[in-house]
């Protein structure tokens, strides 16, 4: 639709206001990536015992909380909102309905994440009586400072508004184009956001009904199994929320970079519908080893989980087929010879291909995690972080970095400072992750736990296999160091890119699919049907387990304490008055902060 125009105009030329939103979102994302990488290298060296001079082991958990929250909430979701804004505006070829709404959700998300970030980082100093050493999963009855939960709630509300913004823009487009199919990228954004609304409703409920009132001392206790189950109701689909932007790039951008076209538009739609339907009713597979949940519920969750392999396996086919088509267009021949004809010198292409390759490996270790019985061997061992550093840590993170090399010039009109450094950087990430993740999987099989400052114990030694515990530690540390260096190169390259002068002629084209949307059944675009089925599946998977948990342990638990207590009950009475006032203050601060950030980013980018 907009191909001809795009060949001449970049996104910035055509939609300058929206390009500014995308830039700001990406900058927020890369700030989080920088912080996350710094905490990552500290913890890699500490945990493996190579260097423990920087922090005490008791502070390791503050580092770990920061690493997790900054990377999997802040880095990923800020990149997502930037990318989705670009995708909706580009594929509908129209501006957002009201840019003030757009900046409102940006301010809410940035403000919320700042609050949560402050509550975590305050854990490093005794001068402020505040901490949130609860890790990314914040399992009660471990308690964080109320600011941690408040920030999360504000952040999620911001993301809801973002979704509403994209839906409104699509509806406005539909008024003008009543008979057209939903453009593929917009279709991907809308289905992903429906999934997000369903999934995040549970964690929002958990935070607002239980955890925040509890941290303020308004209720005395919570039911740990209930809040944990509500977390995983959100906690599994959130991994697809990280992954769907990467899928969007693999389906719609990667084939064009390879010189080809997407193989099948209808199948891409089917895949996103399957993710919408199956992402949420699977969360209990994180709780296979939880007492208080019946085996039958776990089995249902496992069945759904295994079927969730289907859309990813279909994606593997379609993406490889599309890339092969591109290679043959470029003159490639032979059964595997076409691989030589691909643009391997392009960091965007190579980065995304390596990310996809690692995702296949991550998929295999995921099949082990998903198996109810073999899960016992690896549950909560370092195997699990080994797995998700392949998925979110590479399939998602490396795709985002690679895509930045392609997208950043189009939202700034500035060419990338060095594509050679970019290419080196994505390959370095792949090598570093191959070392680190492989060794983590191996240690997991020895029984080495995740989430610990000192995995070596005084009373026993681990069984010896795969080179042994110590040797694997060295591999993890080397891998982690390479990953840190790769991040430094990425950020450095980007900062130098910002110093480049603006030029013209950077526009890129996305070619339409070989088998276009007209081949796709109309029903795929009827989002109401998919919402209905998705909600039904979630109710089927979760109504009975949640009812059983509440029935057995009560809404506020069978008698459980609080560790540590942030605000005790007497102060809680005061809090009832103070909460609305605090909210007003928080809103004002968030607004102010974002205005400053906005001013700062426009200064940096301009």
């Amino acid at each position, binding site marked *: 639709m907009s191909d001809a125009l795009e060949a001449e105009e970049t996104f910035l030329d055509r939609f300058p206001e929206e390009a500014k939103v995308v830039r700001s979102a990406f900058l927020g994302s890369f700030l989080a990536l920088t912080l996350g990488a710094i905490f990552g290298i500290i913890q890699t060296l500490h945990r493996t015992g190579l260097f423990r001079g920087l922090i005490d082991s*008791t502070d390791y*958990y503050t580092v*770990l909380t920061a690493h997790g929250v900054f990377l999997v909430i802040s880095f990923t979701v800020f990149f997502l909102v930037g990318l989705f804004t670009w995708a909706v505006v580009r594929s509908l070829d129209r501006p957002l309905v009201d840019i003030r709404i757009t900046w409102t959700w940006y301010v809410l998300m940035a403000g919320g994440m700042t609050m949560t970030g402050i509550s975590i980082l305050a854990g490093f100093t005794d001068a402020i009586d505040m901490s949130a*050493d609860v*890790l990314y999963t914040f*399992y009660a*009855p*471990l308690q964080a400072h109320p600011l941690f939960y408040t920030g999360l709630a504000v952040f999620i509300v911001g993301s809801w508004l973002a979704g509403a913004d994209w839906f409104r823009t699509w509806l406005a487009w539909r008024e003008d184009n009543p008979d057209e199919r939903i453009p593929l990228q917009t279709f991907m954004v809308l289905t992903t956001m429906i999934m997000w609304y369903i999934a995040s409703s549970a964690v929002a409920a958990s935070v607002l009904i239980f955890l925040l009132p509890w941290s303020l001392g308004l209720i005395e206790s919570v039911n*740990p*199994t209930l809040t*944990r189950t509500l977390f995983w109701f959100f906690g599994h689909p959130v991994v697809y929320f990280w992954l769907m932007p990467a899928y969007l790039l693999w389906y719609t951008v990667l084939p064009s970079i390879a010189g080809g076209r997407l*193989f*099948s538009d*209808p*199948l891409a739609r089917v895949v996103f519908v399957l993710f919408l339907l199956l992402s949420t009713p699977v969360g209990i597979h994180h*709780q296979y*080893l*939880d*007492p*208080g*949940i*019946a*085996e039958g519920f776990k089995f249902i969750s496992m069945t759904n989980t*295994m*079927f969730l*392999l*289907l859309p990813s*396996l*279909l994606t593997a*086919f379609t993406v490889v*087929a599309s890339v092969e088509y591109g290679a043959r267009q470029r003159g490639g021949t032979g059964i595997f010879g076409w691989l030589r004809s691909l643009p391997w010198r392009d960091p965007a292409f190579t980065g995304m291909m390596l990310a996809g390759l690692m995702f296949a490996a991550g998929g295999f270790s995921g099949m082990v995690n998903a*198996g*109810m*019985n*073999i899960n*016992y*061997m690896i*549950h*909560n*061992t370092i195997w699990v972080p080994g797995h998700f550093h392949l998925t979110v840590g590479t399939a998602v993170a490396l795709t985002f970095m690679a895509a930045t090399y392609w997208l950043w010039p189009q939202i700034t009109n500035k060419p990338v400072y060095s594509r050679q450094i970019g290419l080196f950087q994505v390959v370095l990430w792949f090598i570093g992750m191959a070392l680190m993740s492989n060794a983590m999987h191996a240690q997991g099989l*020895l*029984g*080495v*736990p*995740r*989430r*610990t*400052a*000192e995995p070596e*114990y*005084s009373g*026993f030694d*681990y069984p010896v296999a795969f080179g042994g515990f110590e040797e694997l530690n060295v591999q993890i540390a080397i891998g982690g160091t390479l990953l840190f260096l790769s991040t430094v190169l990425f950020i450095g390259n980007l900062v130098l890119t910002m110093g480049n002068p603006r030029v013209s002629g950077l526009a890129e084209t996305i070619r339409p699919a070989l088998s276009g949307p007209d081949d796709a059944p109309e029903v795929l675009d009827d989002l109401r049907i998919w919402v209905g089925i998705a909600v039904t599946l979630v109710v089927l998977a979760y109504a009975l387990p949640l009812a059983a948990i509440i029935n*057995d*342990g009560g809404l506020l638990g*069978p*008698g*459980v*304490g609080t*560790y540590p207590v942030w605000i005790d009950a007497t102060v809680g009475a005061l809090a009832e008055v103070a909460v609305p006032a605090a909210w007003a203050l928080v809103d004002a601060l968030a607004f102010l902060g974002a205005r400053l950030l906005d001013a700062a980013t426009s200064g940096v980018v301009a």
Partner: protein
Amino acid sequence: MHIHAYEKIWLAFAIVLILLLLGSVTYGAVGPGVAMVADSEAQIDANALDEDDRFAEPRVEQVGENEYEAYVVAYQFGFEPSPIVVPENSTVTFQITSRDVIHGFEVAGTNANTMAVPGEVAEITVEVSEPREYGIVCNEYCGAGHHAMEGKLHVVSEEEFAEMNEGGENE
């Protein structure tokens, strides 16, 4: 909708793979009888474990010929009893709960692994063979001293086990 022939073959392969994975787990549960951690035990008040006859005194108890039950309490930052001592070639059912926050209970290097959640009682049954010392680690983050939380499982010979228990009764 047009689907390419290769795509159909791949789709069929994917569905067969999924059914095989599901089948293998189902076989494990129905055939060899691998039992999962489930909701077999009622909830208890984690603040009043000293009033519970299993967990007031965490211990190992013989409940049948060659069958033992181990009542284990996880707390910040350790396990009771420690060590957990059981005789060789026996069947041991662990009942595990937590006094404070969520912990893990993992016999390192084996598949004896469960969450220990306050208010809930996890039950797992394992077979132990020849005498050996195992490490037990808490594999869920439970607070600033998490890394120091460890326990031991001692599988001892029948003679040694009998001797120990007699010694206990004489005291």
